[in-house]
């Protein structure tokens, strides 16, 4: 048997030495864990369907420079922070000084804050499951720290535009850490875009730490180019009676991977995860979610929809783990998929792991196609076949997209999706 491939040592050398000392030390320490890190293969359970899309060359280990102009498809009705290739660009960012709210790039932190942060970074993620978060741990060059003091409420959504300028082959490692104090509230929008045609790796980690009663809404748009391999991880820790809501909209690419992990650690916590994925051509998208019900009386609700056209490949893996003491848990997971062409593939695996008896858990998954009767109904009323297809497909995902609470994002997503379907059904 040939030995399992390991991560090239080229990836062990981070750039960006402007970080405060405690964070540099943390990075160095985490880098040592990367030596001989096995790369996922077809036999790696959580990369079973995606490992063949992963292509890491040594020149991809080079950090992309933090220059270029940030583009966004969003009309931004709130505060804005711009990252280029994983480094914050203060000139392009706009947000006011608000009482009880810290929004600061990692590079600007003083030694004490950096020390405190270095103790927290990575704590919201299970690195066994999200292996590539380790790479980010060792490589991040900058990042954004958001601290909401108890009771603080961010009055408008905060937009973080992550732009990858891939003019040459390389990689970027954006990092966000959000600490939400008791009863604080905010809406965070993360948009991932790219320009340039060179192969690039974007390896992201976003962490949310919700203290008792905090209420966070997270919206994530993945709209990078075909040439970008995106491997992202989001970790969420939830305290008592906190509420987390996530909306992810993803467009496929060469490799798209998002791990979303939620741990309900305080009683009465609630989480809601929505996701929409569309792929066409030879694109790929892999969503892995896991919800850990650690404490009793928590509620989780998860709905993901995938649409795969042409020869593309969409994957959903949802895991609900009810721990022994998590009595009175309620968990519901639902995954529906549309497979539009015979060359496309959809793989779904909704898992339940349950160790408590007084729980209500259910999951459902379907894979199918547009309903012929509905199509006929529309066509018989004079709507063209193509338009009818677009309408029905839009309806399939709009149930989720229409729930996105920020209007600007919702409308942009709907427009983009509509364009996508117009293109998909072009031949009809």
């Amino acid at each position: 048997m040939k030995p399992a491939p390991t991560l090239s040592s080229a990836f062990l050398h981070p750039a960006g030495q402007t970080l405060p000392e405690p964070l540099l030390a943390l990075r160095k320490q985490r880098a040592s864990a990367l030596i001989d890190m096995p790369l996922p293969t077809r036999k790696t359970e959580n990369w079973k369907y995606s490992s063949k899309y992963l292509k890491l060359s040594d020149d991809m280990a080079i950090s992309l420079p933090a220059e270029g102009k940030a583009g966004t498809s969003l009309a931004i009705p709130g505060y804005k922070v711009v990252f280029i290739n994983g480094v914050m660009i203060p000139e392009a960012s706009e947000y006011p000084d608000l009482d009880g709210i810290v929004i600061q790039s990692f590079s600007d932190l003083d030694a004490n804050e950096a020390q405190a942060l270095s103790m927290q970074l990575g704590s919201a993620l299970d690195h066994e499951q999200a292996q590539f978060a380790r790479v980010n741990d060792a490589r991040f060059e900058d990042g954004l720290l958001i601290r909401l003091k108890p009771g603080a409420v961010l009055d408008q959504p905060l937009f973080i535009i992550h732009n990858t300028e891939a003019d040459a082959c390389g990689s970027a490692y954006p990092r966000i850490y959000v600490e939400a104090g008791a009863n604080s509230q905010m809406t965070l929008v993360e948009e991932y875009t790219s320009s340039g045609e060179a192969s690039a790796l974007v390896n992201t980690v976003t962490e949310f730490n919700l203290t008792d009663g905090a209420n966070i809404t997270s919206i994530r748009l993945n709209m990078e180019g075909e040439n970008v391999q995106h491997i992202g991880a989001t970790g969420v820790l939830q305290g008592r009676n906190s509420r987390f809501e996530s909306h992810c909209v993803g467009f496929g690419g060469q490799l798209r991977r998002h791990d979303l992990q939620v741990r309900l650690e305080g009683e009465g916590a609630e989480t809601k995860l929505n996701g929409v994925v569309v792929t066409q051509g030879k694109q790929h998208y892999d969503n892995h979610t896991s919800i850990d019900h650690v404490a009793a009386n928590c509620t989780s609700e998860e709905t993901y929809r995938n649409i795969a056209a042409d020869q593309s490949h969409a994957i959903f893996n949802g895991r609900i783990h009810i721990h022994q003491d998590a009595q009175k848990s309620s968990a519901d997971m639902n995954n529906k998929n549309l497979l539009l062409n015979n060359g496309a593939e959809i793989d779904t695996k909704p898992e339940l792991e349950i160790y408590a008896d007084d729980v209500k858990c259910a999951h459902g998954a379907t894979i199918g196609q547009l309903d012929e009767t509905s199509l006929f109904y529309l066509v018989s009323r004079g709507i063209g076949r193509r338009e009818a297809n677009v309408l029905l497909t839009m309806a399939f995902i709009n149930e989720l997209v229409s729930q996105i609470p920020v209007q600007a994002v919702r409308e942009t997503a709907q427009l983009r999706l509509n364009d996508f379907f117009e293109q998909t059904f072009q031949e009809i």
Partner: protein
Amino acid sequence: MATTDTEVKELIKREYEHGFVTEIESDTFEPGLNEDVIRRLSELKQEPEFMLEWRLKAYRRWLEMDEPEWAHVDFPKVDYNSISYYSAPKRPEDMPQSLDEVDPELLRTYEKLGIPLHERAKLAGVAVDAVFDSVSVATTFKEPLEKAGVIFCPISEAVQKYPELVKKYLGSVVPAGDNYFAALNSAVFSDGSFVYIPKGVRCPMELSTYFRINAANTGQFERTLIIAEEGSYVSYLEGCTAPMRDENQLHAAVVELVILDDAQIKYSTVQNWYPGDENGKGGIYNFVTKRAACIGKNAKVSWTQVETGSAITWKYPSCVLRGDNSVGEFYSVALTHNYQQADTGTKMIHLGKNTKSTIISKGISAGRSSNAYRGLVKFGPGADGARNFTQCDSLLIGDRCGAHTFPYIESRNKSAIVEHEATTSKVSDEQMFLCRQRGIDPEQAVSMIVNGFCKEVFKELPMEFAVEAGKLLEVSLEGSVG
């Protein structure tokens, strides 16, 4: 209501009834596994050359393989060299030809199990190919079967009498290198059943075999091969018990079903092997590979299983739906208690057009047990119009047990439809309230609810099969009809 009462007690608190050891001198190999052991085994069974080659090839494959670790079970490593790979009741050269010739000690064993072979076979019209340890010792009702042209015999006999059939089909569904345990079985399989239903024949009776693991430290490696020719039908029943013993015993069986055009096989299992004691000591390791290949058009296969025994169950009866319009079904009740661990489910591989499959799985976990459903539903690019419906429900009794669901669903066809749903619950307060409000005491109420929970699967079992499962199933079956 009295019956359902007993049922819950049987299901949850029952002690293993079949724990006794039959004192019979065994002709047993020294523990250990190497090519010589396989040569000796093959020679002893007077197998043709091709079988020995096949076994050796499987053995060499096995040496290169790693034991699978993905299942949701936890057990100490098996030392394959501490197992004896052959054990037969004495006098192998002079096998009994009829019931009268069977060692009375053996017959008494069956009687203790509540299956008076002779009487029952007559009454129920069931032919029994009883497997005691590794060699088949009695086969009844051969005559009417022969008249119909059905071949039902020990596989060791089939290897000698029908080598061309064995050569053609053995390993065609489960290749020797399919998985670790299948490779081991292919190398050292001791005996098992062979069934051949000729074209257009509806097997005149339910075929049944009993497996028992008897001699200490003897792994039992059963091999079953059933071939249903065009337009034929057979219902096959399999039931298992094993004597109580402290050491873990390994059982790695392989079952292959071949179904041609318009044929149908119904395969039912009641597995009630020794599950270990209340502290999780002892019990059978049940690592089984079961697979059906619907090669022909309109072929149909149906697996029904009731799994209540074994310390560890690793079993995924599968259907490869190759022929157009073929149908696969899987009905399962798995009950685990104390420290039992079960990782069981099915695979439905849709390759042909308009293939249909149904999966109904009911898991009940109690005590400190762990019960997992693991399944795969796969639609190949050619599976136009294929359809699957899956339902897996788990019921938890007690707060120290686990119930898990790991369904893999893969589709590569745009006209295929798959629906999967799973629920996990305990006996709810509302259900209990409703029953108690109507004057039903709590114990009866629980039994009613558990009974209702499994009803969908129990109704798939042939009624004749209630015997071996004893009260366990008898009660369940009665409950399901009234």
